[in-house]
């Protein structure tokens, strides 16, 4: 363009080019910062839930319900460990999945609709991809402390026999993220709220929680229902968690699958959400 050669235009364009440097480099973090600031208003709720939930669940299932099961099967009826040790990694992964699902349903739809801040960010020098990155960073910022607290409560209950147990925090985080990203790929498309969120919860998250080898081994289910576990990231995360937290025995290829499958979901969810959001912002 010839205009750029003129001094004014060159100066203006130069300023613009300089102004784009920082947003291009750190934009995702700015978005995450924004989301975290928004979370501060319900910090108290978050704290109470993330401490209260593990206490309540581990007590109800790992102590109360366990008393029935251990009586029936003997104290080490699950690959040589108690029901508490068996169920704890599953509950940890479930907590991560729940938080991820929460953060990837309404907040994403809201950003386009009832509280359309995504459009505001995009009017500033932030790209659609950065918005998605920022949202996912903030989802991680919620999952990780939730998992750490959960794990500490697990230790308190004596639910983690193996010294490798702390790694279950990572596994659970990863599991939660993979579910969250897949949900986000869907919720970022939603234009009209026709109760899709309730459907995700009732026909997605709840059955996943109940039929993913969480409370009992997958083999307990009839063979024609076991596919639910295989496609459920929660089952993969839970099984890997069991390997780490009490040394559950499984073939190496299966452990590899427990990592690769959620990883594939993450990649798919992340890129799809980026594509959808970018397209939707560009009206």
């Amino acid at each position, binding site marked *: *363009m010839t*205009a*750029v050669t*003129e001094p*004014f*235009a*060159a100066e*203006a*364009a130069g*300023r*613009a*080019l300089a*102004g*784009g*440097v*920082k*947003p*291009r480099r*750190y*934009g995702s973090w*700015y*978005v995450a*910062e*924004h989301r975290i*600031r*928004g979370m501060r*208003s319900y910090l108290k709720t978050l704290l109470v839930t993330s401490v209260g939930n593990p206490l309540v669940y581990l007590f109800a299932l790992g102590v109360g319900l366990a008393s029935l099961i251990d009586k029936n099967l003997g104290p080490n009826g699950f690959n040589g460990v108690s029901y508490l040790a068996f169920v704890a990694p599953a509950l940890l992964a479930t907590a991560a999945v729940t938080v991820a699902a929460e953060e990837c349903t309404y907040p994403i739809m809201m950003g386009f609709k*009832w*509280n*359309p*801040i995504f*459009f*505001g*960010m*995009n*009017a*500033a*020098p*932030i*790209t659609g991809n950065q918005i998605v990155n920022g949202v996912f960073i903030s989802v991680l910022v919620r999952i990780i402390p939730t998992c750490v607290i959960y794990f500490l409560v697990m230790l308190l209950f004596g639910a983690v026999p193996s010294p490798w147990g702390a790694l279950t925090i990572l596994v659970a985080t990863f599991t939660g993220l993979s579910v969250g990203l897949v949900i986000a790929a869907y919720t970022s498309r939603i234009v009209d709220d026709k109760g899709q969120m309730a459907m995700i919860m009732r026909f997605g998250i709840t059955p996943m929680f109940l039929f993913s080898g969480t409370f009992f081994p997958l083999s307990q289910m009839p063979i024609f229902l076991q596919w639910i576990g295989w496609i459920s990231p929660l089952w993969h995360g839970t099984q890997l968690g069991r390997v780490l937290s009490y040394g559950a025995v499984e073939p190496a290829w299966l452990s590899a699958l427990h990592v690769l499958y959620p990883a594939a979901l993450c990649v798919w969810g992340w890129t799809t959400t980026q594509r959808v959001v970018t397209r939707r*912002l*560009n*009206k």
Partner: protein
Amino acid sequence: MSPPVITAKSLTKKYKEFAAVDGISFEVAPGESFGLLGPNGAGKSTTMRMVGAVSTRTSGDLSILGLDPNEHGPEVRSQLGVVPQQDNLDMELRVRDNLIVYGRYFGLSHAQCGRKADELLEFAQLTDRAKAKVDDLSGGMKRRLTIARSLMNDPRILLLDEPTTGLDPQARHILWDRLFRLKEQGTTLVLTTHYMDEAEQLCDRLVVVDKGRIMAEGAPADLIKQYSTREVVEVRFGSDRNADVARRLAGVGERLEVLPDRILIYSEDGDAELALIAEMGLEPITSLVRRSSLEDVFLRLTGRSLIE
């Protein structure tokens, strides 16, 4: 003269087959205050989004500050302030926090954001509301907050899409005053409106758009001169007699427009026409001579039928 900060050539945006913006061309000079005037659905917001580098054009050329927004979206946006038609403030944050997070998007440091936020809260007369929830603000306050937000990065160009629609007269005047100050400070303003008084108040130059095309272009006064007369006489004879009388008035004034409830006579000298009518023995129920306004231009160019 400095080169334009915005240059649009045959700018077009199509949604499937429908051309929301249909090949418009215009230029905006630095420091100028430029208006897009048009009825609902004319394509104003679509144009603003393309200029705001958030909507990819279908065809045509667009250059903002010498850069193509398709390739340099973030760079272009770093120099813009945007006040969208619908406020998109963050309802979950408080007033001051809204400004701060927005400033961060431009890479400003926390300290810079805080300083700038306080300065702009003052400018937008919201200092005592700094800690309020956005939800609790009135419509006018939200609008001022959106404008304050758009100024966080000291933009070179401020894009305002119907900045005062839906506000009460007091709120509008406060806003106009703030915009006028920005104009005095040399900020380039691009605004859309369908309020004629707003366009006359704020715009040095404007284009009238309709159905995605430019119908006319010029300074408000020039447009009035070109598309209307100096004065307009409005006479009412009652809805049942209007059409009848209009036939007898043929030839009075430069142009005659018959509406269901009144007749408009476009003329250089309204009082003279009124005297003429009296001479003809026609006695209007009410009569009014007024200066021609941009509204007359607008209605002439875009028609009187309702566009939804």
